[in-house]
């Protein structure tokens, strides 16, 4: 995309967290260094700037089918702490794909931080696929900090599928995801995280299964290398006849530390809740198999990690 508000670094960041070519095909709002710089609305998707706090309201008309909405954020200013509230109001039976990434480029010694609070209000029968990608780059020693909060409120018959990815360059992140589910709803979360150096990542899931036949699947796959530290906390409450499955799977290398605390609480005899957690190094037999196919140990390790985080 061409814009006088965006330079080369901005476009590079945008391409890391979004599909640049696709952005302009639907509604979008690009936020740079704490301010909205580009916006486009469509017949079915309206974006309105909030008056009380920094952020936007995104309104999707009922019965909207298969529209893309891009809400990328880029930060290139060292020392900036950006707090934004984005609320998504999804009308009845609408079906949309929302892409909301954040990229930070920090070449200096001051910290750059983005705290995005995303709230999703899905009306009856609405369906959303929400893709969130976090990325950091730059040569400065200032930290690149991202603390996203995602709240999901699902009305009867609605569903939300969330994919979050943080593979590179984020110094510190605390990710909080909360779901409140009514009758016949489904909330699927897939998280992929990779940390290295002295990076820190914490994930907290809190899902309340309040409606009959509500269900959730929470999957976290992570790789921790170097001296990095990760924490995975998942709390799922089955308050009705419902189903939940949470799975935390981590590969650990070098001196990294990973803590997984999956917690499930059944407050109803019909609640069916499962949790799994596994942490371990790359299995030696996997490395050997790929080496028998001609890959070096390093190449084999890369293939295993790439597949694991795909």
């Amino acid at each position, binding site marked *: 995309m061409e814009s006088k508000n965006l330079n080369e670094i901005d476009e590079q960041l945008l391409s890391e967290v979004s599909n640049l070519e696709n952005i302009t095909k639907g509604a979008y709002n690009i936020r740079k260094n704490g301010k909205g710089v580009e916006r486009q609305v469509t017949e079915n998707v309206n974006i309105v700037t909030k008056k009380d706090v920094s952020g936007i309201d995104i309104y999707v008309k009922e019965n909207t089918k298969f529209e893309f909405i891009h809400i990328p954020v880029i930060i290139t200013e060292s020392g900036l702490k950006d707090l934004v509230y984005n609320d998504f109001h999804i009308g009845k039976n609408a079906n949309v794909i929302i892409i909301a990434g954040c990229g930070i480029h920090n070449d200096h010694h001051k910290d750059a931080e983005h705290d995005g609070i995303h709230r999703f209000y899905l009306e009856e029968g609405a369906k959303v696929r929400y893709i969130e990608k976090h990325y950091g780059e730059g040569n400065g020693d200032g930290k690149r900090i991202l603390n996203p909060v995602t709240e999901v409120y699902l009305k009867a018959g609605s569903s939300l599928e969330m994919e979050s990815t943080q593979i590179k360059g984020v110094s510190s992140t605390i990710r909080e995801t909360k779901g409140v589910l009514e009758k016949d709803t489904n909330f699927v979360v897939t998280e992929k995280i990779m940390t290295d150096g002295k990076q820190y990542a914490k994930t907290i899931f809190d899902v309340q299964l309040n409606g009959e036949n509500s269900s959730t699947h929470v999957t976290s*796959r992570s790789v921790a290398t170097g001296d990095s530290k990760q924490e995975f906390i998942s709390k799922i409450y089955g308050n009705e006849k419902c189903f939940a499955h949470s799975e935390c*799977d981590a590969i650990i290398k070098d001196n990294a530390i990973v803590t997984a605390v999956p917690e499930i609480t059944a407050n109803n005899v019909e609640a069916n809740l499962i949790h799994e957690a596994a942490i371990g190094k790359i*299995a030696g*037999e*996997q490395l*050997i*198999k*790929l*080496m*028998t*196919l*001609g*890959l*070096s*140990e390093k190449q*084999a390790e890369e*293939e*295993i990690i*790439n*597949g*694991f*985080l*795909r």
Partner: protein
Amino acid sequence: MILELENICFERDNKKILNNINLQIDLGKFIAITGPNGSGKSTLVKMIMGIEKPDSGKIIFDGKDITNMEINERAKLGISFGFQQPVKFKGITVYDLLKISANKKITKKEACEALAKVGLCAKEYVDREVNGSLSGGELKRIEIATVALRQTKLTIFDEPEAGIDLWSFNNLIDVFQTMSEITKGTTIIISHQEKILEIADEIILMKSGKIKEIGTSEEILNKEIKNKGCCQKRECKI
């Protein structure tokens, strides 16, 4: 000669797993290794691939001393290895694994052809992850497909019948035969299956870490195995 083992010894927990093995194998031969459990068969073939390293002795492959080479270096020289227990992965698909095996860009169609050769209805499998959702027999066939695709000078299979039913296994025997015909290379296969032993050019009989006897299938089957009834003679007709 494609492979030569000289005075190979391997000891663990004060037990001689391999006790001074000397062996010479010619190019293009189909060799079966058989013998009772614990006789050192698997350890021997793992030595050839580099998965285990000998305490002493020398391994010569295609004129090169490979004794101290890493697994991947041996793979590049032209050795392939089919595992007794196929390895499972998380996230790596059948197509990914076949691409790595082929060591070149292959299309999904080519990957499907490789799967069809081992009796898998390819379209159902090519995009699946190589994980526990596949049955033991399916994993075994995928394992064989990854090895077959490499078309190397030496192909080793560590007890390919393990974990697969006899009906399915009989259908795979053709795969082993065809593979050695196509590659014109050498196949070494650990097996207790009479049908495999029958088609072998040579059988190596191992016992207590030593090679007890080497001979044609006729010689060995008549002399050692049939008399002692230690070979599975179950026939299956489909």
